[in-house]
């Protein structure tokens, strides 16, 4: 018995010694490997990186992003500002540039056609934002009730937002066909007027609304999604406290839901507002600015000035005016948003 114990103890100590040896070998080999890597690394780079402070390292990491931003965003902006003071024409890139001072700005700001395009843009932006916000928030409010199958309906509602504007533009052209279009037939079914008696895309009166309907259909889900995030962020205990105080649903909506979801609604309005000021693809696909110039929004006028009339300098001036307008409005909007958040 004693001999067996002694044998086992001996085995145990031998095993421990072996493990220690293996560990020391591994440690030695990793040290050797590390030294080899250090030797292989070029010395100047290694010492330079070792000598950098945290601040310098941070700058090193963000420099590529800043360089890309400067190249892709800031440089074109500065170049456009420069071109807006010249007589540059994109079809004659090698012609000598002449400084024309503020003449491009003066012409843009005295042109009744461009003024008309601004009004068309304002009409489009106002109605799309109003409809998208109202419908988007209502949908979010309904989806937030968590009824049976709400996840399925959320996915279905989000589908238009995921489609390409090119696809949406093309199939809405089919939907708006006077003879075979589903839209005309639905309107005919609801109102009793013949489907071929009106043309959504060819009528001066209806074509602006045709574009507003398509944009609202496509982008309401986006507003809904942001509003839904806002509604889901409201803690349940506030509603429970309101119920204890016997606050009606109407009161809960005006005193809790709307004020707490307001920053999210405002954010959605800001995003959609900026996006709709630049609206180009959908209008081009649906009406191309027509009939006449009824749906010619600012970005289409801009493109025509720059690449059809080849007055690129003047178009640059117009682009800068639009930029100043959106930038100014975004400034005061962000200020208002911060105030709402601080309440």
């Amino acid at each position, binding site marked *: 018995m004693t001999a067996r114990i002694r044998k086992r103890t001996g085995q145990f100590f031998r095993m421990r010694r072996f493990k220690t040896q293996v560990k020391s070998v591994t440690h030695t080999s990793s040290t050797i490997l590390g030294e080899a890597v250090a030797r292989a690394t070029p010395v100047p780079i290694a010492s330079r990186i070792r000598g950098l402070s945290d601040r310098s390292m941070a700058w090193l990491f963000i420099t590529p992003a800043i360089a890309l931003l400067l190249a892709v965003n800031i440089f074109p902006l500065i170049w456009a500002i420069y071109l807006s003071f010249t007589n540059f024409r994109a079809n004659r890139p090698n012609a000598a540039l002449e400084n024309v001072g503020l003449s491009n700005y003066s012409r843009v700001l*005295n042109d009744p056609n461009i*003024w008309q395009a601004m*009004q068309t843009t304002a009409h489009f932006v106002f109605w799309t934002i109003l409809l998208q916000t109202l419908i988007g928030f209502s949908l979010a409010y309904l989806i937030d009730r968590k009824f049976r199958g709400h996840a399925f309906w959320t996915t279905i509602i989000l589908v238009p937002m995921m489609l390409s504007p090119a696809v949406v533009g093309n199939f809405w052209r089919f939907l708006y066909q006077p003879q075979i279009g589903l839209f005309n037939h639905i309107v005919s079914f609801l109102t009793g007027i013949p489907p071929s008696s009106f043309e959504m895309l060819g009528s001066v009166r209806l074509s602006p609304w045709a574009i507003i309907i398509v944009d609202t259909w496509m982008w309401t889900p986006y507003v809904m999604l942001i509003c839904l995030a806002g509604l889901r962020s409201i803690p349940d205990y506030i509603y429970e406290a309101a119920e204890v105080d016997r606050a009606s649903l109407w009161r809960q909506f005006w005193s809790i839901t709307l004020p707490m979801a307001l920053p999210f609604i405002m954010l959605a309005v800001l995003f959609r507002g900026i996006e709709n000021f630049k609206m180009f693809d959908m209008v081009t696909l649906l009406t191309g600015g027509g009939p006449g110039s009824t749906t010619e929004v600012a970005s289409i006028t801009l493109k025509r000035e720059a690449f059809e009339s080849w007055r690129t300098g003047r178009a640059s001036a117009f682009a800068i005016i639009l930029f*100043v*307008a959106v*930038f100014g409005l975004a*400034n*005061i909007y962000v*200020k208002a948003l911060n105030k709402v958040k601080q309440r």
Partner: protein
Amino acid sequence: MTAQPPVPSKQKRPFFLRRGPMENIATGLIGLGFLMLFQPFLLIFYTWSLVTLLAGTLMFIIVSKFPE
């Protein structure tokens, strides 16, 4: 009865260096310029909209750096 030491009155900054009112003026100018740019009534308002917008935006950028 002990006399209270006089409380030093807080030095008021000149109006044009106060952030609150100047920011409000800048915001008003931007709003006005924006309305002038998109209104359908008078071309002359449209013509002067950029100047109003620019003045408001530049003023906003400057006065928003003033201390509270």
